[in-house]
């Protein structure tokens, strides 16, 4: 159970860093005649550092390439299948809601004249969705395992 919690926490951190790195890659962006000028924020560097460190820690800690989808026996196989089902439902349902929400953001932005970035909103929503799906998987896995 500890292994699944750590792996899921690692994934949540990865998705969050990815989201932040894509939402806020640069600060103080100035549009130039050709391209743009801006300074890179800390998030892309954190993401790169994490992508380097995580596989090393994972390998040394887990002593294997097992993912959170791995199972040791027939009962764990059922638990993984039940948890995956929940995560799938959250993902599909969440994607439908996300598409509607992105449409809503665009419509709201156009009708009120407010400058709301559809790009940032989309990345934020997708990041939140990936995190929620992972947390759902982990919660279901732990709940079933404790039975």
């Amino acid at each position, binding site marked *: 159970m500890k292994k699944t919690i750590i792996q899921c926490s690692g994934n949540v951190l990865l998705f969050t860093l990815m989201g932040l790195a894509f939402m806020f890659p640069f600060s103080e962006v100035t549009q130039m005649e050709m391209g743009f000028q801006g300074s890179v924020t800390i998030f892309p560097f954190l993401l790169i550092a994490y992508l380097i460190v995580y596989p090393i820690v994972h390998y040394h800690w887990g002593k294997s390439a097992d993912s959170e989808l791995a199972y*040791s*026996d*027939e*009962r*764990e196989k059922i638990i993984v299948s039940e948890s995956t089902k929940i995560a799938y439902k959250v993902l599909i349902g969440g994607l439908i809601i996300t598409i509607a929400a992105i449409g809503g953001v665009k419509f709201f932005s156009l009708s009120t004249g407010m400058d709301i970035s559809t790009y940032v909103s989309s990345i934020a929503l997708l990041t939140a969705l990936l995190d929620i799906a992972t947390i759902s998987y982990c919660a279901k896995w732990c709940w079933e*395992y404790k*039975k």
Partner: protein
Amino acid sequence: METLTNIVKELRTQKDMSQGKLAELVGVTRQTIISLEKGSYVPSLLLAMRISEVLETPIEIIFIKESVE
């Protein structure tokens, strides 16, 4: 609704066997044995047969089908 109860715990303690040892002999995790003894997990036929072999008791004695209202 029908469910499956078992006397794995009784037979295991009679044989002075730990949950970990039984788990090792039948090739599952200790948590699966705990769950099985609590009655919250219904094993596959293959696992039930392995338990039957290890506990040297016929499968129909270990696992009993019961009706729950």
